[in-house]
């Protein structure tokens, strides 16, 4: 019974951070512009992230090390410094987008322009980090995030043509706007295969004191959690395909998002949307902030744990404080959060190889993972994911330039 509770809790918490402003925005854009045709991108991204998260969890459970720890150790400081700079840039932009998401939810709730909410939202994130423990962030916010199941309920209630939904899960060539189609596909993959997800999961396994005995549970949690998250993303796409696409609505601003749930749930749909966006963005913002602090502390060998009081690990506390301030400075400029989101998703896609290539080496290193090394199948999958990551890295910026609007 205890194990079932642990697995259920693990699945719910691993969804926290999966569904965030990037996945909501890109799925809504895909549904509005291409109906059900881009569901395959969420399925493909979901499959990739399941394998990466499972491997990150297995690595940490067996070796007692996080993936960034081992990257510094096995690939040296110069590679780590490059990875750190790339991830810091991407994470700051994604965090700025998530803070923007929280602010947009507050704007929708109060009518006060989102920029005014930047400082209170950043303070709230900092306060949860300052006073909260890893358990509160991991479990508390993720539990609240279950409100995003309203997208799934809405997708069922609206009765989509299921044959078209299933057909959309198979890759197909675009019928119109080819460049934009591929740009949205790349953005979805960038939003789904987020480095902070597998790095955070790896650190979480250490925070939760996972051991070799957790290898089986990790597999179930990683698969269940990431599948669960993908289903919610698909639900957002289905709603957009059913509501926005027939009306010819383009997703150009976040204030259009309530229309995803209002036609299904009426008045309460508006508030469900506000809660879903606000809570999922808050959860993702906390995870990204924490991940930046973990990455910094692990790379430089400092003491780290979110469950310790700030004075006990002053550099760790300083790292997340500075991260929040820098990201809030981007949000407060007033750049449209949707623009930051779409740009940061494409940038994430462009930088994926840097964080994924090390998996192939680390997951086969006997000194870390011993008998739990990757088999031929897992290695083949990682090679395929690396291939996808390189294609995304090459095409994402040109697509951003030519198909981003």
């Amino acid at each position, binding site marked *: 019974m205890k194990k079932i509770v642990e697995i259920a809790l693990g699945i719910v918490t691993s969804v926290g951070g999966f569904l965030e402003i990037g996945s909501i925005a890109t799925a809504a854009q895909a549904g509005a512009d291409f109906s059900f045709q881009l569901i395959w991108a969420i399925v493909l991204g979901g499959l990739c992230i399941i394998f990466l998260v499972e491997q990150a969890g297995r690595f940490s459970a067996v070796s007692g*090390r996080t993936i960034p720890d081992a990257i510094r*150790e096995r690939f040296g*400081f110069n590679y780590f410094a490059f990875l750190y700079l790339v991830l810091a840039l991407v994470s700051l932009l994604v965090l700025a987008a998530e803070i923007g998401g929280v602010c947009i939810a507050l704007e929708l709730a109060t009518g006060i322009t989102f920029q005014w909410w930047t400082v209170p939202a950043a303070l709230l994130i900092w306060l949860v980090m300052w006073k909260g423990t890893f358990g509160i962030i991991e479990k508390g916010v993720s539990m609240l995030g279950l409100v995003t199941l309203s997208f799934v309920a809405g997708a069922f209630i609206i009765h989509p043509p299921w044959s078209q939904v299933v057909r959309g899960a198979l890759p197909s060539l675009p019928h119109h706007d080819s460049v934009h189609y591929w740009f949205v596909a790349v953005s979805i993959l960038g939003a789904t295969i987020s480095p902070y997800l597998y790095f955070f999961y790896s650190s979480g396994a250490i925070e939760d004191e996972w051991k070799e005995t957790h290898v089986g549970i990790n597999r179930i949690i990683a698969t269940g959690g990431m599948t669960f998250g993908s289903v919610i993303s698909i639900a957002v796409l289905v709603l957009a395909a059913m509501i926005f696409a027939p009306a010819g609505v383009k997703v150009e601003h976040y204030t259009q998002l309530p229309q995803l749930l209002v036609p299904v749930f009426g008045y309460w749909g508006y508030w469900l949307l506000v809660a879903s966006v606000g809570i999922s963005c808050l959860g993702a913002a906390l995870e990204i902030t924490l991940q930046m602090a973990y990455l910094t502390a692990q790379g430089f*060998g400092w003491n780290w744990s979110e469950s310790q009081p700030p004075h006990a690990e*002053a550099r760790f506390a300083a790292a997340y404080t500075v991260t929040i301030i820098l990201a809030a400075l981007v949000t407060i400029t007033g750049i449209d959060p949707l623009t930051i989101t779409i740009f940061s998703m494409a940038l994430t896609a462009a930088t994926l190889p840097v964080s994924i290539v090390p998996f192939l080496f680390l997951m086969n290193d006997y000194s870390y993972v011993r008998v739990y090394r990757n088999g031929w199948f897992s290695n083949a999958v990682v090679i395929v994911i690396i291939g996808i990551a390189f294609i995304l890295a090459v095409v994402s910026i040109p697509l951003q330039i030519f198909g981003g609007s």
Partner: protein
Amino acid sequence: MNLVRDCLDKQIDDRSKRRMGRVDGIVLEIEPGRPPRVAYVELGVKTLMNRLSSRLGTALAKLLESRHIESAPYRIPWGKIKVGLNTVHADVEAEKTPALEWELWLRKKVIGRIPGA
């Protein structure tokens, strides 16, 4: 032992198993007519910057010295180092070494002063 594989960039724990940093550099002593000898492991941002580029290391050292901040890396004699599997143990007390200077300064002057720390 392969120094780069088994020691460089590994986490260093002190005698009470507190994380005190990583092995940022390894210092070899070369005397004429004798084989090279491992003398110290180094911890410090200047050593790290030197690994990226010697110009960067020199520029950082100048910047720190202009602000009267010690730029020399902290050296631990090799005799106090024990290399394990993916870990390095130092027979020192981290809080009494320059390795935690910044941590203690931040704790005392900044983080520790914020309510709730």
